[in-house]
């Protein structure tokens, strides 16, 4: 049914999606907050830039990342001299790639949720002497909960389904960069169709269960209704 390497690939996929989602929520929240509140004239430029992964072919993004991550480039070289291990063809490289690739899927629901909260609750909280961070964590976060949920689920699911970027920058290293989608491709290439079926079914089931959980827990929330 599942070979040892298939299970490794599945666990690695979940780990990649989980870590990428955490990073995305941590960095995406302040960014989305700023985008929702800022009145900067050229904000549209940044918004267009952040939405690019929605429309770019993954191979384009993957190719640029491949070039940027290589030890010959300044980014790849700087990373290697600071961290001590190369960025290209590493798990860390995949996390960086996934974060960029899934960024719009996290930013946009958060930004919309923050805009929907509006000024009023914050002003009320301020008159009750809530500090700025208290206002954010005690007022905005609970009110924007559906937005956080959408952002996390979309970020996770989108990373789970990643293929093109990983194909370019992963290198198919078992246990480090061989995620489930790549393992499926390899099984099909080598005519191991039974293994490909099992692994595909596993991904399908995981994705479906994830979405069922979210919809069941929030029957009225605007999750995944973009």
């Amino acid at each position, binding site marked *: 049914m599942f070979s040892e390497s298939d299970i490794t690939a599945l666990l690695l996929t979940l780990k990649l999606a989980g*870590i990428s989602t*955490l*990073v995305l929520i*941590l960095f995406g929240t302040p960014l989305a907050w700023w985008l929702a509140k800022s009145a900067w004239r050229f904000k549209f430029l940044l918004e267009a830039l952040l939405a690019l992964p929605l429309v770019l072919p993954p191979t384009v993004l993957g190719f640029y990342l*491949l*070039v940027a*991550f*290589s*030890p*010959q480039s300044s980014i*790849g070289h700087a990373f290697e001299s600071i*961290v001590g*291990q*190369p960025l*290209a*063809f590493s*798990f*860390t490289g995949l*996390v960086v790639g996934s974060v960029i690739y899934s960024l719009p899927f996290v930013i946009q629901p958060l930004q919309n949720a923050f805009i929907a909260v509006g000024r009023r609750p914050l002003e009320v909280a301020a008159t009750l002497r809530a500090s700025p961070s208290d206002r954010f*964590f005690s007022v905005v*976060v609970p009110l924007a909960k559906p937005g956080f949920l959408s952002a996390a689920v979309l970020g996770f699911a989108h990373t789970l389904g990643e293929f093109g970027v990983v194909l370019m920058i992963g*290198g*198919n*290293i*078992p*246990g*480090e960069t061989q995620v489930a989608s790549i393992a499926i491709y*390899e099984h*099909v*290439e*080598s*005519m191991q169709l039974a293994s490909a079926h099992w692994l595909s079914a596993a991904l399908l089931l995981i994705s479906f269960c994830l979405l069922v959980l979210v919809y069941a827990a929030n029957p009225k929330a605007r999750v995944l209704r973009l």
Partner: protein
Amino acid sequence: MRQTITYLIAYLLAQFSYSDVFAAQVRVAVASNFASTAEVLVAKYAQLSGDQIVLLVGSTGKHTAQIQYGLPVDVFLSADSEMPNLLEDKGLVVDGSRQTYALGRLALWSKDPQRVDPNGEVLTASAFKRLAIANPKTAPYGRAARQVLSNLAIQPKLIYGESVAQAFQFAHSGGAEIALLALSQVINFQQGSYWLVPSELHSPIEQQLVLLNDVPAAHDFIKFLLSEQALSIIELHGYTRPAATGYTRPDQLEND
């Protein structure tokens, strides 16, 4: 909430500083067509050596590109001689390490056990609608397949797979009735019928290896690959053994 975030950040930092370094691990980039043979060889090698061999399966073209961008592999088992040659020209391989480990053979295959006759007359008589081959631009077996067709002076209707693996899928799914494939793909496949294409009909498909990292464990594995024991396994999987093992001069390898 803030405490949770602190924990998350700590967890992330722990993830990023994580690295798995094994004692003697050899990473081998292997061409898709040789992957199943390589798995058998690795299983055999595990009985002889404690070193761990990790296989990275992929197309030779992709591997060649990725090696130039720093793919961390010690040995590269290519599907042709051209890509190792290119890496050698760029100074990315250990001097003198390039050598042929197997000669590929072509086979005409059909899923139908009666379709392909022992003399391959189905091909010469053009008694079929569509023939699947690998893309001659990127796949060495596709190039060889095209040479066979021009040597037989036939111009059948072709469908091109991205690789021999895809050409196999076309023939397996019925998209093409017959396909010119690598013998290694069909020799141990329990279905269908095949004809071994005479090697005079195409230039030799020399599958070469190169050493990329001068480490003892990688040397040991290459030595094993070229040993009598390994070569007989390679032969069982549908390859011809190279004429002589050892360093081959580049001018003897031009085949295109």
